[in-house]
């Protein structure tokens, strides 16, 4: 009985694999004052696009492998693969949504994505 309980507790941890903690951005394209890329949230001005190399990090700082991103609502934030292993985000419409993070085809987490009016970011 105790052995079964131990296995039952262990199974969810095995299934979920490594956890996602935050994103790390590099080679961010030029988009002055209209894009704010943070580890667990992005803010984009409505209408603009940005490209970046993005690593998804585990709590221990190691990178998740074969990472992919998907918008929960393409009418708010568009997400597409870009050139040279970069990813492209663009503010399709005002509002809030999430960007889902996958590793090797499995969902590992999400970050908040906010699209705001251009005047809100450009005045920062």
């Amino acid at each position, binding site marked *: 009985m105790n052995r079964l309980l131990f296995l039952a507790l262990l199974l969810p941890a095995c299934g979920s694999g490594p956890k996602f903690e935050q994103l790390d951005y590099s080679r961010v394209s030029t988009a002055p004052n209209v894009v704010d890329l943070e580890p667990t949230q992005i803010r984009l001005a*409505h*209408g603009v696009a940005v490209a970046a190399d993005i690593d998804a990090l585990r709590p221990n700082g190691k990178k998740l492998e074969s990472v992919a991103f998907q918008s929960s609502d393409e009418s708010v934030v568009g997400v597409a*693969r870009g*050139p040279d292993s970069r990813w492209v985000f663009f503010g399709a*419409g005002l509002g809030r949504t999430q960007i889902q993070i996958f590793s090797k085809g499995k969902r590992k987490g999400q970050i908040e994505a906010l699209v705001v009016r251009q005047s809100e970011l450009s005045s920062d």
Partner: protein
Amino acid sequence: MGATWRAVGPGLLLALFGLHCGPLDDDEVSGDLGQGAFAYGCVDSSDPACRDGFDADEFPNGVSTGSRFEVSFTEFDRVFDDPDAARVFPAAPAFIAEEGTTFRARSAGLAALLAQQLNGGRVIDFVHVRIADIVELRVVESDGDPVSLTLTEGELLELRVFGVDDVGTMLSGSRSYDWSTSDSLVVALDTLSPTALMTVRAEAAGPATVTVETEGATASVDFSVVAP
């Protein structure tokens, strides 16, 4: 033959297949990611960016709200220079709408146009287009000179109108204009076509004002026609 081919063959092949690896054309800008060139095209002759037809003199610094324009994309270092290899689409329909093969600027701001592989694959590159409201219309002669305000009876004069933004930058894009004259017996409009070009004809001595309008902006030219 072999030496000659080695000397000119590669260049000939590149010319035949249109490899885009040289400097940008005047109407092109490099994308933000440096992967290709975005070229601006005019929908018709009312676009001030294309004074000599449909080829733009340069990629514009801004387009006017409500105007139409074209943008195409060519990937750098692509051997087969196929303009259909990528589609260009706006990031946000609130700023730029697709109307068939052309775009319409809908509201002022910075708006991304993205070039994507036709199969819905990766985004190759993107460019940001500045959209601004016209705050002032300017009328010049068709060659760009200031308008001659005194005309002689029988004289024809071709006028060109364009819009500028709040800092005086010329805004591109095709749009409709409404021309009118205060006295068609003095200065007549040669055509009623709603374009940026208008030929006026001095009919008889006297004063007359020619007015041009487009979506909220107006400009007037006060003519004085004299006898020959």
